[in-house]
């Protein structure tokens, strides 16, 4: 009888809605004052009950306002989205309370009690993060051990690249071709020359000094440039009708895909020099670049193969019936269509490539994560690991999130076009 009376129905809305709302509001008030004002309204209750009191109260309140077809649009929407059943109501409250409880210490650490001004560890007096660390080390985190006075070269190399890519989007179709050829085949040499120097009056900077976030970009850019054509060749090889080529391609692809990148990097660092004639020396950065390129090319090959397999057989037959040879058929008919099909997959491989670059620290090259490892072991800056890795995580997250968003949009766009 009592239970029946407690059942929230539309005819009791006038009593239940205000009552339930008061319960819910009180529950939130309790949690909020508890976290932000450090004052416990329900302190008079026994300890365990006190702890769960807002949860119970909110739960009961949400139960009371769960009125189906109440006619109130806001209430209906609320019930449908966060309060559709007892279990949902419980989870909703739990999540909201956890967010409220977590936001206060998080904000304190990140901003409110953090230190931004100063130039040494002693300036960090608050309980929060010491962002002075990032500020002081910022140059190193971006450029590694690249000499301060020469850093304009790194900047201008990247600015030139961005400018060229930007222009390539706007130039008319006719010149675009030459522009892209310039970007792919001429610009890399200009960029390398600008970075390493040694001629044209530029001071030589050895690759061991390269580092920081810029190294991440350099490695990603070069690996992308080379792994794409190799991947396409491997994919074609894997689908070739010539058994020797097919099996070599399969073996190559599966070999790289079967081992972790870290062992490949070890191989490049310690095993590869054994395979070269005594006295020959290949720069460590180049060895690492080759390793990453071959590794990612195997993944790229599998993505491209997916596109090749998805093309209907008629495309191949039509091309052949026009008298086209193998290469003409692939370059003019098959690849343009197959690659378009797998653009999202290619974007995902590139995303994985960027996420893999921090691994190069195992062979002693230091990009962002590696530089933070170096900075946090500096005797003057001990105990700054949290700030460092939060910062690095944020930087990488922004880059990777932007890339994944872009590839998702591309995927959506392409799937509607077809």
């Amino acid at each position, binding site marked *: 009888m009592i239970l029946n009376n407690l059942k929230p129905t539309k005819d009791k809305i006038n009593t239940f809605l205000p009552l339930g709302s008061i319960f819910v509001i009180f529950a939130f008030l309790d949690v909020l004052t508890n976290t932000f004002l450090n004052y416990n309204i329900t302190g008079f209750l026994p300890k365990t009950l006190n702890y769960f009191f807002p949860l119970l109260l909110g739960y009961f309140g949400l139960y009371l306002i769960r009125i189906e077809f109440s006619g109130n649009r806001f209430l209906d929407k609320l019930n*449908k*989205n*966060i309060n*559709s059943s007892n279990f*949902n109501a419980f*989870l*909703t409250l739990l*999540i*909201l309370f956890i967010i409220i409880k977590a936001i206060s210490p998080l904000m304190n650490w990140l901003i409110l009690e953090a230190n931004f001004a100063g130039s040494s560890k002693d300036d960090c007096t608050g309980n929060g993060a010491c962002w002075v660390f990032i500020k002081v080390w910022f140059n190193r985190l971006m450029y590694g051990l690249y000499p301060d006075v020469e850093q304009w070269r790194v900047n201008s190399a990247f600015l030139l690249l961005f400018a060229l890519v930007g222009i390539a989007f706007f130039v008319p179709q006719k010149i675009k071709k030459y522009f892209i050829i310039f970007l792919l085949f001429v610009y890399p040499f200009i960029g390398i020359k600008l970075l390493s120097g040694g001629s044209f009056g530029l001071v030589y900077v050895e690759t061991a000094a390269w580092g920081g976030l810029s190294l991440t970009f350099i490695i990603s850019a070069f690996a992308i440039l080379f792994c794409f054509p190799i991947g396409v060749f491997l994919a074609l090889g894997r689908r070739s*009708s*010539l*058994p*020797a*080529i097919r099996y*070599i391609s399969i073996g190559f692809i*599966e*070999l790289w*895909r*079967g*081992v*972790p990148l*870290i*062992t*490949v990097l*070890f*191989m490049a660092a*310690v*095993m590869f020099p*054994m*395979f*070269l*004639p*005594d006295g020959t020396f290949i720069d460590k950065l180049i060895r690492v670049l080759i390793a990453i390129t071959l590794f990612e090319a195997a993944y790229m090959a599998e993505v491209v193969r997916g596109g090749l397999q998805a093309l209907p057989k008629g495309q191949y037959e039509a091309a052949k019936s026009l008298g086209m040879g193998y290469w003409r058929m692939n370059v003019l008919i098959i690849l343009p269509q197959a690659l378009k099909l797998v653009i999202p997959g290619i974007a995902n491989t590139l995303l994985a490539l960027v*996420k*893999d*670059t*921090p*691994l190069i*620290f*195992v062979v002693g090259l230091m990009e962002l*994560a590696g530089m*933070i*490892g170096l900075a*946090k072991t500096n005797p003057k800056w001990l105990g700054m*690991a*949290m700030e460092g*890795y*939060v910062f*690095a*995580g944020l930087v*990488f*997250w922004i880059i*990777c*999130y932007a890339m*994944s968003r872009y590839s998702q949009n591309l995927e959506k766009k392409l799937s509607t076009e077809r």
Partner: protein
Amino acid sequence: MNLKKLSIENKKIRNLIPQALTILALLSVIFYFATNAQINMGNRGISFGFGFLSQEASFDIAFSLIEFDGSYSYGRAFLVGLLNTILVSIIGIFLATILGVIVGVARLSNNYLIAKTAEWYVEIFRNIPLILQIFFWYFAALRALPSPENAINFYDVSYLTIKGWYIPKFVWINFDIFCYSLILAFISIYFLNRYTKKQREEFGKILPTFTLSLGILISIPLLSFLLLGVSLSFDYPELKQLSETSYTYENGVSIIPELIALALALSMYTATFIAENVRAGVMGVGKGQKEAAASIGLNKGQILKLVVMPQALRIIIPPTTNQYLNLTKNSSLAAAIAYPDMVLVFAKTALMQTGRAIEIISITMLTYLSLSISISILMNWYNKKMAIKEK
């Protein structure tokens, strides 16, 4: 003799030329590398061979599942590393699956808040490089834990400290009998399932299979405790003072922070991918399937168990196995935080001591490779078995 047979016009010969050239190029590259390697190794006074595996390792490993100290061989060190890799992979796979399924289901929730929270979880953890997450847990988060004397105490049974997580040790008596009883339980469950399936298909009788299986799984091992002399007791960790300021825990099992950090990072990272697979799988089952099942009178549980799950699993399992494989390969990042896995123990420490780069790197890569290939063979077999058989 027909001249056309030998000319370039002949398709067979035209096909042979590029193949022969490729093989020749490959062989010459291998030959070039091999000669160089031989000369280089000759200069250093070492010869290619795997004899070093039986030499004394003379280094210690911080964490090992089997007995190991400096007097054991390099081969044994490799085994320790391999076991540690397998250990962290199994823990990671277990946690990642649980977390991934929860997050994946949560993303499909009709509760806006839950769906959004799950989505942000995926977006955040998927887009931060794994190595940074490992560093974060190891160098930042776990370093904030208290020292042993102020440990976080879980009901006086287990303690979380900066030096690791101390949990009670299981002390078994007649553990082998217990294992046999477990095996017996699984075998009887298998036969029970066959029996109930037969009953269902031939006589239309539906037996409470799940309850019965659970009963068997609990009762047979329990009987072994009561009748066959199996017993289990716990060795609890106890605080012990080493010197005035340094404390440690004795007895019990210590889980080193490296393992905690690695397992946490691996499972949280991989869980995001598994969650996406789960979501895709459940969404991939057409609405019509559920409606059709409901229209022939199945209840909600039956729809989920008999119609939705079998179809969803077919979509979920192949990419998820791939993720398990990725997790195993990613566990090699352990080398970055000094968790003694195969890469750290073998490809780093042992390599530095012996200088046998070629042998050691090849063994390490081959181990991972055989792991990958065996899993993909298993996967192909499973896919073939699960593929929709059209009649």
